[in-house]
């Protein structure tokens, strides 16, 4: 079981639910799924970067760690994948049940060891290649400004591509100086396997994990406009959920918003991506053709208003079935359940709360509650990169 409080870098707004995490560091939380043909191991570190250099260090170190895990498990019937979002970085092994213990041991051993200089060097070299290709692309500049805002820095001060590339100097040495588990604290470990399930009445009786903190006095949203003559226009919007929104509710509202806007099918919309960040805020990134101008920000704001209203243009009861199916498919796979539980643990959930979150497909939030959450959402940051 991961102990968030023991992390070297407390990264998230872990919620004080009064239940508190339990168990020893590095002991995995086990989720029982006796019907699955495969098992999974999820090792998750918090997405805790507070500076651009820290972010680069995280990315390069993860690349080296992934390569090291793959080398250590090359002979096992396992597939190792990596993903990251605004909450965490996930290393997931999908594995034949008989090889679970050895893969778990290998991942644990690698995460507690200093990464080989060869892999650290390869990772930094690959990062350098990436940066030389994309560092000064408008999309990268937009991401830097928005990421800086999310970290609480002044977005306008976000560095350019050359500054970012300069941050790579000495990175390989830094990676090789400390084992990943020492640098970021013990990761959250989740194993999904054939085993004895925690009785569902134990988890259903729990208070749900709260995703967002207490109410703060409303302040005007922080707006940043970066002019650009690029033919694409990027917009990042950050919304605060109302107090006491649970993690399941926040996840459903996020998916409902995606489903709601999917109905528009606008050829001028190039990208649309949502996530819930470490502080429990909804982050929406979208890009449109420059000609579409500010229409999509207004559409996004309107979609949230519609979700909160009783008789919106797109009714909530029409949106819920597709979202339920999507949520169920995500959690039906061993890797999806493991990832969900790991995310909950990194947000400060107890073991039982994390299990409940990973098993939440069968008990979605009530529509009325989701409407109330949507009604209470407020825009806190908006970054626009491109023409007005």
């Amino acid at each position, binding site marked *: 079981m991961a102990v968030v409080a023991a992390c070297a870098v407390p990264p998230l707004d872990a919620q004080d639910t009064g239940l508190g995490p339990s168990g020893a560091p590095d002991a995995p939380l086990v989720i029982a799924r006796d*019907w699955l043909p*495969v098992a999974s191991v999820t090792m998750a570190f918090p997405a805790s970067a507070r500076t651009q250099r820290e972010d680069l260090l995280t990315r390069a170190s993860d690349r080296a760690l992934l390569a090291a895990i793959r080398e250590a498990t090359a002979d096992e019937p396992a*597939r190792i994948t990596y993903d990251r979002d605004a909450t965490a970085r996930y290393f997931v092994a999908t594995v034949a049940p008989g090889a679970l213990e050895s893969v778990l041991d290998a991942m644990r051993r690698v995460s507690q060891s200093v990464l080989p200089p060869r892999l650290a060097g390869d990772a930094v070299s690959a990062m350098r290649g990436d940066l030389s290709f994309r560092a000064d692309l408008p999309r990268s500049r937009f991401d830097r400004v928005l990421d800086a805002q999310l970290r609480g820095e002044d977005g306008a001060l976000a560095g350019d591509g050359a500054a970012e590339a300069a941050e790579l100097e000495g990175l390989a040495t830094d990676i090789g100086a400390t084992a990943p588990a020492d640098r970021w604290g013990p990761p959250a470990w989740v194993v999904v396997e054939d085993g004895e399930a925690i009785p569902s009445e134990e988890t259903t009786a729990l208070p749900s994990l709260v995703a967002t903190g207490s109410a703060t006095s409303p302040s005007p949203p922080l707006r940043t406009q970066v002019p650009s003559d690029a033919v694409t226009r990027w917009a990042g919007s950050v919304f605060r959920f109302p107090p006491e929104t649970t993690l399941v509710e926040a996840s459903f509202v996020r998916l409902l918003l995606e489903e709601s806007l999917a109905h528009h099918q606008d050829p001028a919309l190039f990208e649309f991506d949502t996530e819930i960040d470490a502080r429990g805020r909804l982050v929406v990134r979208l890009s449109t053709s420059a000609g579409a101008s500010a229409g999509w920000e207004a559409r996004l704001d309107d979609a949230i208003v519609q979700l909160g209203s009783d008789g919106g243009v797109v009714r909530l009861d029409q949106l819920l079935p597709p979202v*339920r199916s999507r949520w*169920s*498919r995500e959690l039906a796979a061993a890797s999806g359940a493991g990832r969900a539980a790991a995310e909950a643990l990194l947000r400060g959930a107890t073991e039982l709360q994390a299990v409940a979150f990973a098993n939440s497909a069968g008990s979605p939030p009530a529509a009325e509650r989701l409407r109330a959450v949507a009604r209470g959402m407020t825009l806190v940051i908006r970054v626009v990169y491109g023409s007005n």
Partner: protein
Amino acid sequence: MPAVVSLLCIAGLIGAVPRLESEPSPTPIQPARLNPSDDGDPLVPDSVLKIPSGPTLILERAEGIPVVGIRVSAPLDPLWPGAARILVEQALERARIRAEAIGADLWGGVQDGRIAFHAIGDAQYTDELAWVVRLLTAEPAATGAGGAIARENARLDQLAETPRGRLVLEMEGKVLGGAGGALPVPTIGDVHEMWRRSFARDRLRILVLGDLPLHWVLADLSRIGGPPGPAGGAAFVPPPRTLPFPESPLYTWTAAAFTLGPAHDPAVLTATAALRLALQRSEIANAAVNLVEGPDDGSGWLGITVRATGRRDADGAMASALALVTGESLDAWWIQGGAAARSDFIAAASTPAGWLALSDRYHVPQGGTSARTAFDRLRALRRQDLAPVLERFQATLFRPGIDR
């Protein structure tokens, strides 16, 4: 056996379930677990039923799973992939709106030599999923196929434009028993004839994954597809036509094609993965070498293309590439190939869609095999088990001209 009891009760209840029999024997009522000792093994189907004049039903019962997945597959009859592609496109379009309404993951295509569809959604929408599957297997309409036929025409033209595409067409021709070339684009009449033959109810295989009772599967899915009955003689398939190949002005291309054996045989999976790794990691000078997958008819055809600036480099690189399919190369790569094949298998089994596809792939009417037996064979494979693979390579290797 509990499954039998359930069936008899339900047969009485719904009044529409005919006498059951095991496949292929006409002996009545043999619905059963494949092997009682496999109780609880998710890689072994819970029940396999053959309904007389009806489909084969394969139930993967998973208590507590939050989704329901339904896969339907049908034989590719006639062996005309273009007609199957049009049939699939029409079916997906027919079912799309209903699937979207419940957020079902909808897929269709030719896989492992069968025409296959799956629909996967939240367990609460089980009845709606069954309706989606009925739409997928319904008779194709004569109208509305123009777009799909135009896209199939464009596909052939695009393949013929590139050396890599020409190799795919050559391999398709080999699969069809010809000497290369491509089958013409089918008419809507050809597509309908394929549906009549392939989707006859008694030729369908329906796989269900979910926390569902057997009677639901019988009641909701046993009557889908077209009327059962014999296919009625050989289907009409026009002869392949030779496509005009434009010259490649900059490079010299060369190609080879071969099969190592049935695509999903564990030894073939291992040898193919070993070849893929060897090609990735071996440095073949002065040329670009690529592995090309052949038609997904289960026969396991593979191709290799080589691109170089001159004939000598191209021939040298091809010789180096083909040398990777020898006993010495397998000695060097088969262990890593086996690990990669096992990893691929596990990755496929990790999603409901992949799990259903594996069950379908390794089902044989006589019983006795399953995804479990395939995986166990994959894990227990020895170097000497790969000998037949090399023999098949030698027997089937040919060198089509793709650079005219």
